[in-house]
């Protein structure tokens, strides 16, 4: 739920105006969310979910010395979904792989974000006519950022990460068209 100065979670718990007034005066939640958002945005832990060619560029080359992702704090790649924040879907999702993609997404704990990288994850890519390919991972799980390309350059991947960072720091900016 969106936390602002006027709408406070305590209003759902009680209708007593005195209690509400005192709690609102003393306990400020919105700044707390802001601090948590700053902490989350600057140290996202990616989930290494490389399926196909995009994994070489997006997961491996972006972490390597030339296009260092650890300048931003995103180099801690975890193997287990329970310890990760961001699921970076790199590559084509097939019908045989779809059930476990959904299962891994559900195993991640909140808050979590998904980045769809490469045209196969966005919409099926060059294989969209195939009998075994899911046309885009957003048919299965909700996606927060899309990085087009086949495969996208590591600089584009870093740009995608920064978009997610902006989205976390400032949830309202998502409704504005990016110039």
């Amino acid at each position, binding site marked *: 739920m969106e936390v602002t100065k006027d709408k406070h979670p305590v209003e759902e718990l009680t209708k007593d105006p005195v209690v509400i007034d005192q709690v609102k005066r003393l306990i400020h939640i919105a700044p707390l969310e802001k601090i948590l958002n700053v902490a989350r945005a600057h140290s996202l832990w990616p989930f290494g979910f490389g399926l196909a060619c995009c994994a070489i560029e997006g997961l491996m080359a972006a972490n390597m010395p030339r296009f260092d992702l650890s300048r931003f704090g995103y180099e801690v790649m975890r193997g287990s979904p329970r310890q990760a924040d961001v699921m970076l879907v790199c590559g084509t999702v097939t019908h045989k792989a779809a059930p476990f993609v959904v299962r891994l997404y559900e195993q991640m704990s909140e808050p979590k974000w998904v980045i769809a990288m490469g045209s196969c994850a966005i919409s*099926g890519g060059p294989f969209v006519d195939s009998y075994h390919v899911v046309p885009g991972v957003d048919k299965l799980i909700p996606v927060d950022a899309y990085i087009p390309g086949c495969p996208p350059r590591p600089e584009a991947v870093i740009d995608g990460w920064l978009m997610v960072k902006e989205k976390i720091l400032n949830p309202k900016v998502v409704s504005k068209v990016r110039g």
Partner: protein
Amino acid sequence: MADYSIPADLMEALKNKFPGLEIQENRDVIVPAADLIPFMSEIKDNQDYAMDFLTNLTGADYKDRFEMVYNLVSMTHGYTLMVKVRIEDKEKPEIPSLCPIWGGANWQEREIYDLMGIVFTGYTGHPTRIFLDDNFQGHPLRKDFQWQGGREA
């Protein structure tokens, strides 16, 4: 381009041994399905040919038949050979499996069974699907395979 085919006199000897053989002008050989296992054992074990490396095993779906294609190489002599086998029955295509002779035939035959539906007989528990789910209906590489999905209209 150098010529790596089997010399003509050795091919003659093969034709005498297996009268059902058909040798095409580009030196490809068409073998009847019944002679497949004896033919393959002959060219593998006989040291004149010594075709011990099975480099490719695949199939194709034509309008009136299936056709299996085998490519063989001899490590010692350097010969190459392409062998084709015609399967006339399109309802229930069957052909003996080469797994007892070459272990490398195992996965390639499973791929052809999965995608084309040709059944390989003579080896227990073989073939099973390898790429698609076990409950997938149909064989995608056949020309008459219909499926839904893909681009949204």
